[in-house]
């Protein structure tokens, strides 16, 4: 099981990113714990300034903009 966090203060791109990750996980049959991190202090604690950002198992893998599907697949595999 992977621990995935979407960093972003509730913007539309952040919603889209969360949905995309959940969708890819369902399709690949991977179970994930998806969490939205909306608190700006918590987001910046990851060193991310451009949202949405994505954290997988405690590591920042993406920041700034909605990631593309291929990238999401590579994180979850």
């Amino acid at each position: 099981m992977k621990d995935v966090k979407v960093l972003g203060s509730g913007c539309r791109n952040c919603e889209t990113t969360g949905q995309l990750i959940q969708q890819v996980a369902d399709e690949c049959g991977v179970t994930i714990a998806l969490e939205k991190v909306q608190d700006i202090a918590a987001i910046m604690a990851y060193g991310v300034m451009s949202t949405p950002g994505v954290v997988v198992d405690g590591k920042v893998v993406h920041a700034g903009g909605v990631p593309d599907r291929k990238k999401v697949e590579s994180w979850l595999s």
Partner: protein
Amino acid sequence: MFETLGDFVVFRLLGLSAESAAGQAVHFFVADSAKIFALLVAIIYVMGLLRALLSPERVRAFVRGRPTWLARSTAITLGAVTPFCSCSSVPLFIGFVEAGIPLGVTFSFLIASPMINEVAVVLLVSLIGWKLALVYVAAGLTVAYVGGMIMERFRPERWVEEYVWKIHMGEAGLAEPDNSLRGRHAYALAEVREILRRVWKWVFIGVGVGALFHGFVPLDWARQLGDAWYSVPAAVLVGAPLYSNAIGVVPVAEAMLVKGVALGTTLAFMMSIATLSIPEMLILRKVIKWPALALFAGVLVVAFTLVGWGFNLMA
């Protein structure tokens, strides 16, 4: 090329007369929006391929730990080069504070970033000529530099929200970007999509207002409008609460200048619309208190008015 397209669509397909106000307005709308979108896609794609669009994380890394004058120059240049979304103003502000970058430098950045970006500059060059583009950029950089310095004099630290000082940033350790040609192409396309999605409505609004002005405002009236001494502060005050992206402002300025509105008045109006707005103030309110916001708005209103008067006097 875009003129021909405009001629074809408006005069042939729609059958409007080239002499009528409606014909001129629609022609302006068609030719300008086609031109602006073509340029937007081309410029953003090329910038993306070159990886010249910096993330806020990298801007912060470039600016931190430098002597103030150099930090300020770097911040302004980087702010001018990259079209940041105003939604990243808050993390940028906090990130700058946390890196120990002086607040005055941060304000300089916040002024330069929305006012100038390379897409708007290319549009200015192709729609109203390189001389005026240069004037706009030079005036904008000066206002950003001096404006930030003046803000610093007022010790704005006392107006920063408490929680901002307590945030500690981690090191992101982001994955290295994929620098193969395919990786760059994918990144450039994604940037084009992202930025277009953010600015398309401002472009249409800008071109629409420009078109109405172009078609329907009488020449004499426009000329008088720009020349009176009070027209500059009036333009600044009208533009201040309004928001448009710097890119959307260009066609409005084009229409104003073609109609003979004075240069200084037009410049002041452009700067005021692109930089000051109610949405931007509400976003910044999350990190600084009202007195600092009022001061920020006040300094900019005065600066834009001086720029406008300066250029009107020189003309």
